[in-house]
């Protein structure tokens, strides 16, 4: 399935919705959205992954880019990642760098 990536910023929370398959060929679009979001000085980055079917290391590299671009003080939330993507995050130690939630939790994210 083709990769799509959309950005919505409200109340300084940048929400990027990822769908389809994220690999080296499609990661550039994700990276562009991160750069766009970073310009708005968000207080949190939320990655909606319920409809993301696949993520290669190119996606992980973009998470590193996000953290470096936005700074250590901006939490990154991963919402609804499927099991295999979660496994990739755990295998590479990224589960310690993001906050994984099954669904969008307003209290946790917006009132952090």
């Amino acid at each position, binding site marked *: 399935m083709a990769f799509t990536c959309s950005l919505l910023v409200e109340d300084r929370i940048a929400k990027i919705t990822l769908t389809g398959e994220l*690999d*080296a*060929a499609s990661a550039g679009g994700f990276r562009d959205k991160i750069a766009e979001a970073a310009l708005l000085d968000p207080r949190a980055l939320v990655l909606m992954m319920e409809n993301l079917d*696949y993520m*290669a*290391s*190119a996606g*992980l*590299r973009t*998470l*590193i*880019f*996000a*953290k*470096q671009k936005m*700074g*250590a003080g901006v939490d*990154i939330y991963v919402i609804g990642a499927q*099991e*295999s993507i979660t496994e*990739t995050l755990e*295998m*590479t*130690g*990224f589960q*310690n*760098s*993001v906050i994984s939630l099954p669904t969008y939790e307003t209290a946790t994210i917006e009132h952090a």
Partner: protein
Amino acid sequence: MDPLTLPATLESLEPLVQYVLSAAAAAGLDRKASYRLRLAVDEIATNIITHGYADAHIDGDVVVNASVDVEQLVITLEDWAPAFDPRVQEDPDHIGKPSDERPIGGLGVFLALKSVDRIDYEYRDHKNRNILTMNRPRAEA
């Protein structure tokens, strides 16, 4: 399955992955195993494209071939980029570090090695040969 020859470009990742997923389905791999195999092949192929050929400033092809026996599905990737053995790469030393302290690279090969049951490598006649093996599920008694 017949081998598939593709130009070593990122646009080739999609047909290459479709080939591998077809082989995985034919071999009876479950969804999780198919995902892992796809991930490993994707990472190795991406490395061939973005480092093997690109860093050497040459064009070339990638050939993918699937073979199945009673116990295993074997995916072979061949290329003519400079020699590169993924097995001798050290595990990234930044696995436990915070994201903002990690270098951008080094994860693809690591994921490939961790995702399949076995990776073998040969370099012969100016050709890299990455051989990825996944064990097939045992038939129910």
